C-alpha cells in the first residue's frame, strides 16, 4: 500500500514537472554536469591508479632501479673533435651496494649495448641488454617461448640470447626462432627464449623499455667491452660506461625507502657528478597517487561547484514554482493537507528532478571516460560505487536544496494562499 502511494507521489511529481519540460531540463543541467564529472573523475582516477599499480607490480615494489645518466657538464660538450666521456655506474658500485647496504637481497647489473642487427638483407639498430639470470626474477615478465638465461649461460659465456616480444617482432621472428641464430653486430647468438615486453604506456619508465634482446652479461663484456664509440657529425666520441643500470632487490617493501637513501649516500661519494639516477617504484607510486589526488581535487572542485550552483538553481526554480503555485498550495491546505504533506509534495518534485539529472549525468559520466580512453589512450575504469555515490548525491542535492522551498510552501497561510491570484 505504502509502496503504491510512493509510486503515485513520484508519478504526480513527474507530471507536474512535465508541465514545464524545458524549464525542468535547464534546471537540472547543473546536477547533470556535477554528477557527470564526479563519475568521470572517479573513473579516470581509478583507471590511472589501477594502471600505476599494475606497473609497480611489474617493476616490483621491492625493487630500486639505478640508471646511469650522462652528466650535464659532459653533455654541454666541448667542440673538440675527439673526446672521451667516462661516466655511469660501475661493477664496483654494484658490489658495494650488495655488500654494504644491509637490507639489499641481491643486485642485478645490466649493460646496454646498441648494435646493428641483421635480418636477412636488412639491418636495424638493436638495443641489447647484457645482464644476469636474476634479471628475470626481479622483473616479472611473462615467458612466451623457450627459457630465460641461466647461470650456466653466464658461467660459460654462452652466445645465447632471449628476445623480447618487441625485439622478436622487429626481427620478424616467431616461435620457430627458438634455436635459430640471430646476428647482432658481428656476432651470432642462439635464441633460447622469448619474453613478453612491457607495453610502452603510462608515466612510469620501465627498465626494459625498447629492449630487443637479453644476453648473458659475461658474454656482453667479452664481445663488446665497456667502451662505446660513436661517430657524430665531424667528431668521434668515446664513451666509457660499465653499467647502464643496476636493479636492486630489497628484502621487504618497508625497507625500500631506507635502502634507497643508503644507496644514495653510498653513490654520492664516488659519483660527485651525479651521473646516476635512483628510481623507486614505490615512490613513483606515491607520486602517481599525489598526481591523482591533485586531479581529484580539481575535478572534485568542479563537480562540487557544479552541484552547488546546480542546487542553488534548483532551489531558485522551486521557489518560483512555490510562488506560482501558491493558490494550489492554499487549495490543498484548505482541503486538509498537512504541512508535512505539502513539504513532501515539493521535496518529491525536487528529488525527482535531481534524480533525473543524476541519471542523465551518470550516462554522461560513463560515456565521458570512454571518450577519454578512446582519444587519449588513458585507461579509465568506471567503478560501480561511483554510480551509486552519484545517484546518492543527486538525491541529496534534491533534499538539501528542495527543503527550503518546500518549507516555504508549507509555511504559507492557507487563507492568504487562497486569495493569491
Amino acid at each position, binding site marked *: 500500500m505504502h509502496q503504491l502511494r510512493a509510486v503515485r507521489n513520484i508519478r504526480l511529481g513527474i507530471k507536474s514537472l512535465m*508541465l514545464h519540460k524545458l524549464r525542468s531540463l535547464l534546471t537540472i543541467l547543473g546536477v547533470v554536469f556535477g554528477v557527470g564529472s564526479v563519475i568521470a573523475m572517479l573513473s579516470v582516477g581509478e583507471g590511472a591508479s589501477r594502471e600505476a599499480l599494475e606497473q609497480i607490480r611489474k617493476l616490483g615494489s621491492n625493487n630500486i632501479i639505478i640508471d646511469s645518466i650522462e652528466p650535464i657538464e659532459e653533455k654541454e660538450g666541448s667542440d673538440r673533435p675527439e673526446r672521451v666521456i667516462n661516466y655511469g655506474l660501475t661493477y664496483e658500485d654494484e658490489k658495494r651496494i650488495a655488500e654494504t647496504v644491509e637490507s639489499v637481497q641481491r643486485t642485478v647489473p645490466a649493460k646496454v649495448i646498441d648494435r646493428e642487427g641483421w635480418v636477412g638483407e636488412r639491418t636495424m639498430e638493436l638495443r641489447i641488454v647484457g645482464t644476469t639470470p636474476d634479471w628475470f626474477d626481479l622483473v616479472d615478465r611473462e615467458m612466451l617461448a623457450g627459457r630465460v638465461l641461466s647461470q650456466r649461460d653466464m658461467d660459460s659465456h654462452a652466445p645465447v640470447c632471449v628476445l623480447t616480444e618487441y625485439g622478436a617482432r622487429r626481427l620478424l621472428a616467431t616461435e620457430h626462432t627458438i634455436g635459430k641464430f640471430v646476428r647482432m653486430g658481428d656476432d651470432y647468438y642462439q635464441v633460447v627464449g622469448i619474453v613478453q615486453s612491457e607495453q610502452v604506456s603510462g608515466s612510469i619508465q620501465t627498465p626494459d623499455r625498447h629492449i630487443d634482446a637479453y644476453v648473458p652479461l659475461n658474454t656482453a663484456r667479452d664481445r663488446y667491452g665497456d667502451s662505446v664509440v660513436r661517430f657524430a657529425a665531424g667528431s668521434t666520441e668515446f664513451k666509457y660506461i660499465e653499467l647502464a643500470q643496476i636493479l636492486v632487490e630489497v628484502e621487504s617493501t618497508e625497507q625500500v625507502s631506507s635502502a634507497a637513501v643508503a644507496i644514495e649516500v653510498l653513490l654520492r661519494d664516488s659519483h660527485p657528478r651525479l651521473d646516476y639516477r635512483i628510481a623507486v617504484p614505490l615512490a613513483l607510486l606515491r607520486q602517481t597517487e599525489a598526481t591523482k589526488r591533485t586531479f581529484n581535487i580539481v575535478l572534485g572542485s568542479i563537480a562540487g561547484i557544479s552541484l552547488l550552483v546546480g542546487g542553488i538553481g534548483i532551489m531558485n526554480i522551486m521557489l518560483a514554482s512555490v510562488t506560482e503555485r501558491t493558490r494550489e498550495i492554499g487549495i*490543498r491546505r*484548505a*482541503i*486538509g*493537507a498537512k504541512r*508535512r504533506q505539502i513539504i513532501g509534495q515539493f521535496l518529491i518534485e525536487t528529488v525527482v528532478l535531481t534524480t533525473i539529472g543524476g541519471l542523465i549525468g551518470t550516462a554522461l559520466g560513463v560515456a565521458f571516460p570512454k571518450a577519454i580512453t578512446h582519444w587519449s589512450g588513458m585507461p579509465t575504469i568506471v567503478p560501480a560505487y561511483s554510480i551509486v555515490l552519484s545517484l546518492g548525491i543527486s538525491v541529496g542535492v534534491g533534499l538539501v536544496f528542495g527543503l527550503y522551498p518546500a518549507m516555504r510552501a508549507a509555511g504559507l497561510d492557507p487563507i492568504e494562499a*487562497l486569495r493569491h491570484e
Partner: protein
Amino acid sequence: MMAAPSPNLTEADDDVVVRLEDIHKVYRMGTTQVHALAGVSLSFSRASFWAVMGPSGSGKSTMLNLLGCLDRPTGGRYLLGDQDVGLLDDDALSGIRLQRIGFIFQSFNLIPQLTVQENIELPLYYLGWNAADSALRATELAETVGLADRLAHRPTELSGGQRQRVAIARALSNSPDMLLVDEPTGNLDSATGVQIMEILVELNNQGGTIVMVTHETHVAGYAKQRLHLIDGRIDRVEDGG
C-alpha cells in the same frame, strides 16, 4: 460571559454540528486592532442551511474561515462536535478540514493541472484512500453532479457552472459534516447560478449542513435561515426560505 441565546436552543445537543460561544477575532494591522468578529454566539444544527449576510467588512469571511478551521479565534470557544477547535494545532486543524469540512469557493479553486477526476479525488488522496476506491467514489460523485462524461477533462476545458459542480463533488468526496460555501454564484451567470443553488438545496434536503456566505439577497433566499452580520456582531437572524 455566557453564550447569547441560540436560535436553535430548542434542538437537542446531538443535532448541533457547530457551536460558537462568544467568538472574537482580532486582527492587528500596524498599531490599530481590527475586530473582525466581536462576540458571536451561535449554534448550527444538523441539516440546517444558513446564509451569512452582511456588508463587506462585516466579518462574514472571517466567520467562514473560522468555521472552516483555516483560522483560530482570538477569543471565545468554537466547538465542533465536542472538540474545542481553539485548542488544536495546525495538524489537527488540517485533520478536521480533511475529515469533516467541505469547501466550495466563489472562484471554484480547482487545481488546473489535475483532471476533473483527480480534483474530486484530492481529499481522498490525503485521506489515504487507494486508487481504485477513489476512482469509484469520484465517478459516483461526478454522476450526482452530472459530469460523469467529463472525468478526464481538465478544469480549463469546462464552463463555469461545470467547474463549480466539480468543486461541489470534491467538497462532498470526504462526506463532510458541514459544507462551507463562499459566494457560490459570484462567478456564474444567473441561469447557471440557479442550477448550482438547486444542487445545494437538494444536498441540504438530503441532510447536508450548509453554511453559505453571500451578499446577494436572492441567493440567500435559498437558505433556510439567514444570519445578518454588521461590524462583527450578529445583527439579526431570519428564519424561513
